[in-house]
């Protein structure tokens, strides 16, 4: 466990160093027509195989990749499961009735295809789940082996964060009913943080910068908010206290839209922040290849390094913001009547908490 964590920390400290050779090797050979947009999108978007590096020319060189299982369901042809290397090995990128077209799976005969493949992002998701479970099992076992004693090792590293989420986020935003929501808040915080960090490691997937992932997390927050809402929450939406009757036709639709705008803002914020960070780092490195001059690296690499370090901060910050805002939305839904009078004015329905938008 300790070694795994150490290795993880080690990898996290040099994301930009490690990203440079990868990009350099991958694109060095085809410098005659370098398209930074395509390269960046390849790095940021999902893929059916886990590509680490290319040695030599793109068409004739060796690709260092981890083939991933393709799971495609075609109502016309049934379920097909095979390795993604079979798609990449064939000249036409076809295997059976499945064809890879611009990194998307389609049926060769045009019938609908539902792609449930273990893509790079799904593999990374599984890896992060495994890491999270291993780490927090270790932390939890620390509490049973040292009952009531002082924390040690990984436990003492992560305990202050857990306490921070509990005391500063959950207790302050949700109030006395915070305990029910602690597992969810802790899970999203560490899930987003770890995946942000994993996304910064060289060769890793951009999972937390994927709109599908942030969409799912935002929907989870929305559903928890709606299912834990009380009558005061709905009263606040359909009959806001202190609003003149004539204004209700304007206010009520705005309030109803607000229910959905809140999670949408969560989704877009996380997606945009993480993806933008990746794009900036990759753009700086792409400059070297655009200008076809290694000297550009003297400027571009320090900048990329700086942005990478900034991304380490953003990784933590975005996880915190997502968790804090989720807690505020939940807090707005579960708060009792006597609080709500003081909180008119706050769009997120929280009491005097800092707006971290």
């Amino acid at each position, binding site marked *: 466990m300790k070694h795994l964590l150490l290795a993880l920390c080690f990898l996290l400290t040099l994301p930009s160093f490690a990203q440079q050779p990868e990009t350099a090797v991958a694109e060095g050979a085809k410098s005659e027509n370098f398209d930074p947009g395509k390269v960046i999108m390849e790095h940021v978007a999902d893929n059916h195989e886990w590509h680490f590096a290319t040695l030599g020319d793109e068409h004739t060189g060796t690709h260092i990749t981890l083939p991933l299982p393709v799971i495609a369901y075609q109502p016309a042809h049934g379920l097909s499961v095979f390795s993604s290397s079979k798609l990449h090995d064939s000249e036409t990128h076809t295997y059976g009735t499945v064809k890879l077209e611009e990194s998307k799976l389609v049926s060769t005969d045009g019938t609908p295809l539902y792609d449930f493949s273990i893509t790079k992002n799904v593999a990374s998701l599984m890896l992060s*789940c495994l890491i999270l479970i291993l780490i927090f099992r270790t932390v*939890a076992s*620390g*509490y049973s082996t040292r009952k009531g004693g002082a924390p040690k090792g990984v436990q003492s590293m992560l*305990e202050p964060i857990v306490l921070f989420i*509990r005391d500063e986020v959950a207790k302050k935003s949700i109030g006395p009913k915070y305990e029910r929501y602690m597992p969810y808040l*802790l899970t999203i915080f560490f*899930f987003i943080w770890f995946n942000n960090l994993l996304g910064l490691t060289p060769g890793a997937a951009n999972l937390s910068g*994927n709109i599908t992932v942030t969409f799912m997390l935002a929907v989870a927050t929305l559903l928890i908010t709606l299912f834990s809402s009380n009558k005061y929450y709905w009263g606040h939406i359909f009959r806001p206290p202190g609003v003149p009757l004539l204004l209700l036709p304007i206010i009520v639709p705005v309030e109803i839209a607000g229910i959905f705008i809140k999670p949408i803002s969560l989704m877009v914020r996380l997606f945009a922040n993480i993806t933008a960070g990746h794009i900036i780092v990759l753009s700086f490195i792409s400059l070297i290849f655009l200008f076809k001059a290694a000297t550009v690296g003297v400027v571009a690499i320090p900048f990329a390094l700086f942005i990478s370090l900034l991304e380490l901060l953003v990784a933590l910050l975005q996880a915190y913001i997502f968790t804090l805002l989720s807690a505020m939305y939940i807090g707005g839904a579960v708060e009792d009547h006597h609080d709500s009078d003081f909180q008119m004015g706050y769009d997120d329905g929280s009491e005097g908490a800092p707006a971290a938008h």
Partner: protein
Amino acid sequence: MDLITPQLGLLFWQTILFLLLLFVLTKFAWKPIMAGLREREDSIESALRMADQAKIEMQQLKAGNEKLLADARQERDRMMQEAQVMVNQFRETEKTKAVEEANRITQQAREAIQTEKNAALAEVKNTAAQLSVDIAERILRRELSEPAAQTQLVDSYLKDVKLN
């Protein structure tokens, strides 16, 4: 556009794995962690409360000790005083006794001296009388040969007797 198009497969896996992660972490990590934290906080709180209580008890004990000490000191003073009184009384009686004894001894001595003195005086008187008789005898033997001298002597005796 690729970037902002949700992927069905990823959504499927993300939902399943996230719920699984939430479930596993809740059961095997968050619950034990939160319970452990609460347990430790409770134990710290109770330890602090116990320390406070111990402090109060210590103060009470200290106050009790001081009271005990003050009592002991008072007792000692009282005993000292009693002893002093007793000593004084004893000394007084001893002194009286000594004085009486001294007086008695002095009295005895005085009486003895008186007796001795009387005895001595009696002896002196006897010796003096003896001497006088002896002297008188010798004188008489020599003088009474003459009648005038005899008369003279008798006269002188008579004179003495009268004077007495």
